[in-house]
């Protein structure tokens, strides 16, 4: 029995006049398109590595990637005797069917495109969205990937991201944080304010303007409560916050100003009889 490749290639697959050869052509063109798309998008990423911010670079690379794949698909379609003009005619009905069937997918896709162009979040931003806090690892066409501060990977569908309240902690260049500092009533609050301001002034990233503010906020049960408002670059505020508080505490203590313990003054109506003092005999 002889095996003729040409004959095999000419076998119809049972759909219209499409033969195995044409099907293979279709698959080949599509595979070639995916391969070219990958190579080109990787090179786009490399070429723009230090020229564009991560977000723009990723968006451009993805546009190039999917653009080439769509182009390959359109080029390959005639192999399946697929008439694009027919697609236009059938588009209305097919669109309805596909629309109902892939409602959530399309919704995620459209949300993803809006996210990419509107830029409420960017790759690397620290955000809170849909009760998830972390840094944005990737904004994909259908989903957004977040790495939580514990290092856990979370994928959120773009529709959920787009329709949720997004808190972007680093969208603005600067942000403010607050300390509450408690000192004893016996301590000089003005001196405490001066010392705290001096410590804040020494930190490079505690911004000069807007100027930090330290003031007596309220008189508490056990302490005079000072509040410090400090502005820092949004991307460095956590480092500044963790760095400064202890320095302020140390500086205050070095100047004899201490953080008080809770205390109560107790008065006994009939006086207080203390038994068992040292030197007393028990009866």
């Amino acid at each position, binding site marked *: 029995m002889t095996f003729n490749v040409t004959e095999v290639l000419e076998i119809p697959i049972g759909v219209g006049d499409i033969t195995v050869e044409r099907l293979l052509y279709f698959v080949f063109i599509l595979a070639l398109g995916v391969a070219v798309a990958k190579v080109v998008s990787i090179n786009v990423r490399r070429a723009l590595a*230090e*020229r564009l911010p991560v977000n723009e670079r990723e968006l451009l690379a993805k546009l190039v990637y999917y653009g080439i794949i769509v182009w390959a698909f359109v080029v390959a379609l005639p192999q399946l005797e697929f008439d694009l003009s027919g697609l236009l005619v059938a588009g209305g009905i097919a669109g309805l069917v596909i629309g109902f069937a892939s409602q959530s997918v399309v919704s995620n896709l459209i949300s993803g495109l809006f996210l990419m162009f509107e830029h409420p979040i960017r790759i690397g931003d620290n955000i809170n969205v849909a009760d998830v806090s972390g840094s944005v690892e990737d904004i994909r066409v259908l989903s957004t990937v977040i790495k939580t501060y514990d290092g856990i990977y979370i994928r959120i569908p773009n529709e959920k991201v787009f329709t949720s309240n997004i808190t972007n902690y680093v969208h*603005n*260049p*600067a*942000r*403010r944080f607050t300390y509450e500092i408690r000192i004893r009533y016996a301590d000089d609050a003005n001196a405490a304010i001066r010392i705290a301001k001096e410590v804040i002034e*020494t930190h*490079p*990233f505690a*911004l*000069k*303007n*807007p100027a930090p503010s330290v003031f007596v906020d309220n008189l508490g049960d056990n302490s005079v409560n000072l509040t410090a408002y400090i*502005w820092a*670059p949004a*991307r*460095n505020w956590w480092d500044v916050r963790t760095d400064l508080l202890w320095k302020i505490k140390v500086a205050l203590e070095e100047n004899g100003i201490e953080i008080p313990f809770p205390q109560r003054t107790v008065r006994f109506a009939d006086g207080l009889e203390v038994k068992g003092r040292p030197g007393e005999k028990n009866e």
Partner: protein
Amino acid sequence: MFGRYRGTFRRECGDILVEAETVDGLLTYRRRCEGQTFERILVSNTGEVVINPVEPVNLPREITDFLLVEFSPMMIEPGASRTVYLKFPVEIGVFVESARDIEVLDVFAFGTQKYTLYGSPTNGVIARWYRSAVYPEIPQVDPFREGVMELSIQNTCREWVEVSRVVFESTDMKIYYGDFVAATATMKLLTRTMAETDFVDAPLRPGMVKSVELYTARKIPAIDRGYLMEWGFS
């Protein structure tokens, strides 16, 4: 200390020590400044170490490209122009250069740094902050701590304008060194709240050497377009 060095060398200026010496057969770059030490082993046959002043926006960590110099307020008449001298902070950059490439090895500086926000917290920019007096002539400076900036201010609007700060994009900065570190800049006042600033690529005195820029060494393409101060200058 500023200049080019090949192989082993040792330069000591006050509290700064910069050297490249052979330790256990390995060429080692070492820097000591204000009690802090930095070391790197250099594997190089033909490379040179270049030490020069660089754009002062890298320490303690690189977070911005902007430099804001605050000075005593000046009232400037409509149409008037004047050249004054300011001081700006100096950071010292160490590069390793070969025939094919240049790379940043180390950046250090004396003293502390301070940053500020120029503009509003929603759309302003973080900038390295520095306070300077205004000098009619080139002031005396320690070349390892401060540089001299020749600033030509031109008021092109029809009103008196008060100026007490100037913001630059450091990617435009052209630094020259010789007996002292210098940069030449311009500030054109467009309205009462807007001004255009830029650096001039020219030495303040003949014979000064142009510094290798960090942005060139880091291969970060930057367009020299100046900076538009949109949030006032007083």
